[in-house]
């Protein structure tokens, strides 16, 4: 266990954390703002990766490919949203259905291959893990900081608009929202679209970063997204009150998550056990508020 190895892995962990932080912002929009648990994420991140990889290979510019990935993610969100609102299927199931369907769709997008290579040697990509420790503008962290900042600013603006406020109201209290003339169904669909668009964008960046797109790259993505949201809230919830800062906390949560992962790997954890560990950690954090209320609340008189 050389400490140098750990330090060498840190920049990569930060970059990866920031990409997953973008995804986590998408998760935050559904899970925290819209109060919907959306499992589409596992599929839509791979969709984003697949769309971007194929388009870049076919000569599209990276920016056009990113935009296309965003749109593809929004379509995935639209499908989940329609399952949920128009077909009356519970949100969780709607997401699972779309996620399952996307597996086939993603294979189709990648020409019936499970894996498509996207080498930074052959194509001009926005970022690559190869430059994770480079000093200078080619370092992926530079472009990712710009992405994170732009996305947070854009969302800060959007959720302050009349439309954005109505979306927040939809999540906060659907009865109240309808009584104020807000179409909660439309808003739920819109929220799911925005969320999955961002998730797919993260997928498009991830495919470039890791140098390939894989049909299975989204497995457990929702759990990592939730982990980032929760870690961000636990660590910075008391300090960051402003909406923009809350989104930043989510990204920081994702970075912390990847740093911790690097440490446990360095300590000798088998990579195959990572998902088990992640699931357990997230389960514990999700259970904490319930336990706190049930077993540790100071009971004031009576039961």
């Amino acid at each position, binding site marked *: 266990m050389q400490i140098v190895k750990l330090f060498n892995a840190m920049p990569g962990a930060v970059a990866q954390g920031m990409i997953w932080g973008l995804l986590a912002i998408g998760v935050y929009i559904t899970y925290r703002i819209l109060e919907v648990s959306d499992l589409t994420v596992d599929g839509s991140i791979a969709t984003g990766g697949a769309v971007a990889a194929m388009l870049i290979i076919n000569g599209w510019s990276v920016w056009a490919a990113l935009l296309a990935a965003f749109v593809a993610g929004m379509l995935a969100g639209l499908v989940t949203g329609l399952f949920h609102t128009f077909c009356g299927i519970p949100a969780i199931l709607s997401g699972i259905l779309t996620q399952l369907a996307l597996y086939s769709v993603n294979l189709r997008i990648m020409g019936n291959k499970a894996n498509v290579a996207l080498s930074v040697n052959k194509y001009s990509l926005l970022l690559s893990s190869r430059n994770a420790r480079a000093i200078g503008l080619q370092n992926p962290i530079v472009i990712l900081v710009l992405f994170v900042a732009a996305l947070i600013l854009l969302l800060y603006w*959007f959720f*302050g*608009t*009349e*439309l*954005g*406020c*109505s979306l*927040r*109201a939809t999540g*906060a*209290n659907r*009865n*109240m*929202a*309808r*009584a*104020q*003339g*807000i*179409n*909660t169904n439309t808003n739920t669909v819109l929220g799911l679209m925005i969320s999955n668009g961002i998730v797919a964008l993260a997928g498009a960046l991830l495919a470039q970063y890791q140098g390939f797109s894989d049909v299975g790259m989204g497995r457990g993505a929702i759990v990592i997204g939730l982990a980032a949201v929760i870690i961000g809230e636990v660590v910075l919830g008391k300090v960051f009150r402003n909406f923009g800062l809350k989104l930043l906390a989510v990204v920081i949560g994702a970075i912390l998550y990847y740093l911790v992962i690097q440490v446990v790997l360095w300590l000798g954890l088998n990579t195959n056990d990572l998902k088990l560990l992640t699931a357990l950690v997230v389960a514990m954090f999700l259970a904490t508020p319930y336990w706190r209320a049930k077993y540790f609340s100071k009971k004031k008189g009576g039961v």
Partner: protein
Amino acid sequence: MLKINHIAKTFNPGLITEKTALVDVQLHLNPGDFTTVIGGNGAGKSTMLNAVAGVFPVDKGTIEIGGENVTNLPEFKRAQYLGRVFQDPMTGTAATMNIEENMALAMRRGQRRGLKWGISNMEREMYREQLRKLDLGLEDRMASKVGLLSGGQRQALTLLMATLRTPKLLLLDEHTAALDPKTAAKVLELSDKIIREQKLTALMITHNMQDAIDYGNRLIMMHEGRVVVDVEGEEKKKLTRADLMGLFEKAAGQQLNSDKLLLS
């Protein structure tokens, strides 16, 4: 202003949980009518209000608000004509949003919501003025989350929000029932004041017979999904609780069960 023509509603038809809530409700309100609604549990009071608000579609009959047939309009579209305050203080406001944001949402009831900033400084001043009138000190807490307010404060705020944009019809669904007596009286006074000042047409459900007699210019009593008593004007002014019970017995054709009516 409101025309309810022979509406009927049965929940869960054909199931073991089938429940006929409205049998045949007929009610016309004139502009400016402040009508109190009383009746026992399960009489259909809340169901009638929710039918007007469009929470669910009715099985039969039509509903007109201000001359427009709204029977087939979804809840969020009917909202443009309606101000609503609910029994549960949690229902009428968004707890995780602050006071001014809640008011800004209410201010845009029935308007298109676009990409303009959700709340302007000019509005803010107006909201502060309005809140000052409530005399609850809320004008100094406009950036506080509504979840931090007491039930009474939330109901007062909901009332203000419901009337920020003058509604064609104000629906008050036992909006003081969850409050302590002192706060309830205060919120009721406030409701009366707003209804008078803005000359609103209002329907107010209450479990309190005395309140039903004291407030409004018209009183209806419901029983088993029908309107069985309807008094207004001078006749209502002279009404006593004993009269009401007499009317009810005559209309319902049975001995009044005081438990059912929750007299107070």
